[in-house]
């Protein structure tokens, strides 16, 4: 039962919150604006904010130099593939932990989380050698597997917390109704957990999208996603702020738009299902 609030207080809140919001968002805004400037305007002193000659030239340059769509497509496939594969493996595991808990469930969960603490640089050589051995260097499938493994603990943890919110009685009802285990998960549990699963997918998609160590080190040309794309725009010779901004904008735009459209799921996802 929220208390009624005066308009005056609401106004103050609004001003404050917008100021903070814009401040936090400003670096991104500035990058987007800069991407429409010429290189000279990008470093002009004093800086120009809105009143400059808007140009698409930087985007043209970037597109000419590298086939953006191919990087984008790889990013989508890799992030999407790893997330989906992860969810497929995580759903049964999370089901087990949530509905048939044992004394060790909590330990297993924390152990899984602890595998995320393995420092990636420390195991680059072993992983690289393994990749060579299996011939999956510079392949999407290789990256899908690695990113899936990296994010699996988070996926399992999130699904576990969402599943735990679902009353076990409903699954028992399905069992009484003659559903097999597969049917129980497919027809009852999964549809009920859809919001949670969506959040999980979304968050892990973003994490996979932004993963920059493995995606860069395990790819060459064929499977390179946007993280590799951006690596060719950092500090080339000459002025590059505007081009860097354009490339950066292109690299983050898809996920930014996706994120904004699915804000509600995402907010839920960002909490890792850990806080209600």
């Amino acid at each position, binding site marked *: 039962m929220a208390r009624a609030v005066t308009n005056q207080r609401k106004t103050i809140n609004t001003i404050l919150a917008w100021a903070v919001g814009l401040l936090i968002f400003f670096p991104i805004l500035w990058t987007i604006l800069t991407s429409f400037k010429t290189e000279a305007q990008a470093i002009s002193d004093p800086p120009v904010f809105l009143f400059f000659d808007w140009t698409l030239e930087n985007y043209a340059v970037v597109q000419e130099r590298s086939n953006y769509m191919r990087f984008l497509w790889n990013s989508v496939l890799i992030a999407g593939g790893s997330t989906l594969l992860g969810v497929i493996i995580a759903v049964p595991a999370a089901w087990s932990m949530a509905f048939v808990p044992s004394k060790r469930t909590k330990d297993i969960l924390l152990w899984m989380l602890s595998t995320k603490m393995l420092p990636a640089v420390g195991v680059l050589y072993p992983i690289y050698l393994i990749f060579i051995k299996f011939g999956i260097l510079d392949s999407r499938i290789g990256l899908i597997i690695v990113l899936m493994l990296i994010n699996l603990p988070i996926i399992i943890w999130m699904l576990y917390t969402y599943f735990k919110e679902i009353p076990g009685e409903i699954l028992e009802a399905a069992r009484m109704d003659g559903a097999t285990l597969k049917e129980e998960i497919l027809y009852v549990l999964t549809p009920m957990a859809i919001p949670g699963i969506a959040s999980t997918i979304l968050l892990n998609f973003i994490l996979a999208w932004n993963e920059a160590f493995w995606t860069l080190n395990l790819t060459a040309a064929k499977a390179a996603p946007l993280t590799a794309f951006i690596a060719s725009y950092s500090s080339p010779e000459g002025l590059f702020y505007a081009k860097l901004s354009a490339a*950066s904008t292109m*690299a983050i735009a898809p996920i930014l738009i996706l994120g904004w459209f699915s804000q509600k799921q995402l907010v839920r996802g960002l909490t890792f299902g850990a806080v209600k």
Partner: protein
Amino acid sequence: MATQHSRSAARLMMAPAVILLLGWMLVPLSMTVLFSFKKYLPMRGGDLGWVGFDNYVRFVSSSAFWPSVQATLLIVGGVLLITVVLGVVLALLLDQPMWGQGIVRILVIAPFFVMPTVSALVWKNMFMDPVNGLLAHVWKFFGAAPVEWLSQASMQSIILIVSWQWLPFATLILLTAVQSLDSEQLEAAEMDGAPVFKRFWYIILPHLARAITVVVLIQTIFLLSIFAEIFVTTQGSFGTKTLTYLIFQRVLESQNVGLGSAGGVYAIILANIVAIFLMRIVGKNLDA
């Protein structure tokens, strides 16, 4: 709710995830441990035989080791402090009724979508550059000498960049927690004569304890291994060499895989010390 049948089904269904993660952990880990006992120099012909604990001794006795541990803890601690404190403040602000709450929330989340590489590049070049960076312009506008962010205030700069990326996460978790606070509790405190600040201190903050734990746990996991932000900005100069970065230097720049692997084992040990420490406090606080 468990019958024999469902218990064995559960074990079966856990298996893929457990086996995969076990493999993911054990295979590279055991290779790393193996390398760490070897003189392994790819540029000099690769495996040059066993050397016992030489690499371990050398890694810790290197003058870069303790500063790197310190830098790691400083970054993790600094970012945690900033994101938690600002996160609480922001969460309380965003919880207030206002116009355009959805849009403000979008603005606040946005940094989370930005790839670490991109955010480091943008901050480094377009904001922190002491000549052309926007911050330099702002400083000059107020008549101050521009700060040489990445050299004079290197640690602070990295903490700033990383905090910017993680603030949305902390804010949102804490916001969810703030919203879950039973308003009757606050009203009860009001009836009991607690003014605003005391309500925050005695009621809201304790209520947020669990959410703060989650923030700390998750962020620590991710922050212990930050790499791109340092690689792009200072490349480990000016005291920003974290343990992760030190290992990177040993393995890839010095091409000493054996030494780097020993570092990797140390990093795992450090991570686990932090983890155990965290789990101890978190475990109780967390119903996971």
